[in-house]
């Protein structure tokens, strides 16, 4: 399951839950859906717990390329 985006996983989790709640699935299908749902749920939790924080300034070079440097607030 190569999900990259949090909201994609969240959306899929929602869909799985709705499908399961709809009760249209066979037992076989619902077991599979449940397993997937658990995976999406784990993925979302993991994303939420990643803590990374950067604030940078974008600087455009003369040749049109970009570099970034840490942003410093001016007091």
């Amino acid at each position: 399951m190569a999900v990259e985006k949090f909201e994609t996983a969240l959306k899929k989790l929602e869909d799985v839950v709705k499908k399961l709640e709809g009760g249209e699935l066979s037992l076989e299908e619902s077991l599979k859906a449940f397993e997937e749902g658990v995976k999406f749920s784990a993925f979302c939790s993991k994303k939420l717990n990643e803590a990374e924080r950067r604030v940078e300034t974008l600087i455009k070079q003369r040749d049109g390329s970009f570099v970034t440097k840490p942003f410093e607030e001016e007091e």
Partner: protein
Amino acid sequence: MQLFKERRVLTVSALTALVRGLLEENFEQVWVEGEISNLACPQSGHCYFTLKDAGAQIRCVMFRGAFRSLKFTPRDGMRILTRGRITLFEPRGEYQLVADYLEPQGIGGLQMAFIQLKEKLAKEGLFSELHKREIPKLPRRIGVVTSPTGAAIRDILTVLNRRFTNVELLISPVRVQGEGAAREIAGAIDDLNRVGNIDVMIVGRGGGSLEDLWAFNEEVVARAIHRSKIPVISAVGHETDFTIADFVADLRAATPSAAAELVVASKKELTAEVEALTHRLHVSQQRRLERSRALVTALSRAVTDPSRVLGHLAQRVDSLDARLVREAGLILDDASERIVTLTARLSRQTPALTLQRSSERLSNLSLRLDHAIARRLACAAESVGLATGTLNAVSPLATLSRGYSITRKLPARSVVTSSRQLAPGDRVELSFAAGSALCTVEQSHGESESLTAPPRSV
């Protein structure tokens, strides 16, 4: 006007008082027209603004009583006509117009430009909901186009510190007011699109006057926002005023802080959402399993107690049986009725009857035949008798028997009716009623010498 003939040193206050006197005496009532800007109406109820035209500006104040009596609400950018007196506010050394009357004069140039651009872009569909991109829930990298020294970036960072921190901010620094600011903002939006890997961007600045915010009402900025592949949240100034950028953006935030709140979703909220969904996942799965179990139980119960099923079936058989009997009876009744009617029709059609009718016709016809033949024969016999009589009457034999004879010239045996047909020496044959004689002509006489006798037709 020369007020001071010799050098005289004045205090600031004294000079100011003098100037004030001059002003107030000479400008007791003036009418001025111009465009309002920097309108501010604090709690006191008095209202302060600047009146300006292309070349100059003057500070104005309208006190509470006069302001309350206005029929309309003055706004920045409005062209107005005002009446008032000139005074001088000594603590600041500023002269100002104390307005007691205002009336609108159409609209100011900036306002007009705003309305016109808004109409033009709306017609092109730049504000259409169809173009609005969705704002991601959990963006990793957020672009910010604003002044690196303004209030906007400070507010955004404050929110970030308070909320979920799993985020990178990339600031593209620009000037947000003054000449060329609009170009810089538009360029920065394009730059962020080129850098790539940015999930969403905030474009904005803190509050200010209509002039201060003007860059966000310019077409280049609107076009850049519309062009952007990255979803754009506009966050310009105060809550109340909309800019063109707000209309084009995918989402409009009232302030930069609000934009940050929108884009940096609270970790708590998202965590709660994921937890709620996970809970529902387990519950619904549980239910599903229970349903299956219940079904299995019900089925096994049905298996151990077939009599109920059988009872049902027996009942069905009985009822079908009854229906069958009823239906069969109906069908039989129907058939026998049909047989009766058909038999009756058949007996009416029996061949004996036909035979009888035919023989009757036959005897009838032979009788008629006999009659017809007899009648025809009698008729014929009568005709024959009649014809025989007539024949006898005209027969030459009858004439001969009365003494006449037929003369034929030989050898041709042509009947002679005139003496001129004959010459002496011709041989003739005389036929009588009985027999004939061969003679030779000795002499013949003309008609006048014929035997005088009444003519007879033969």
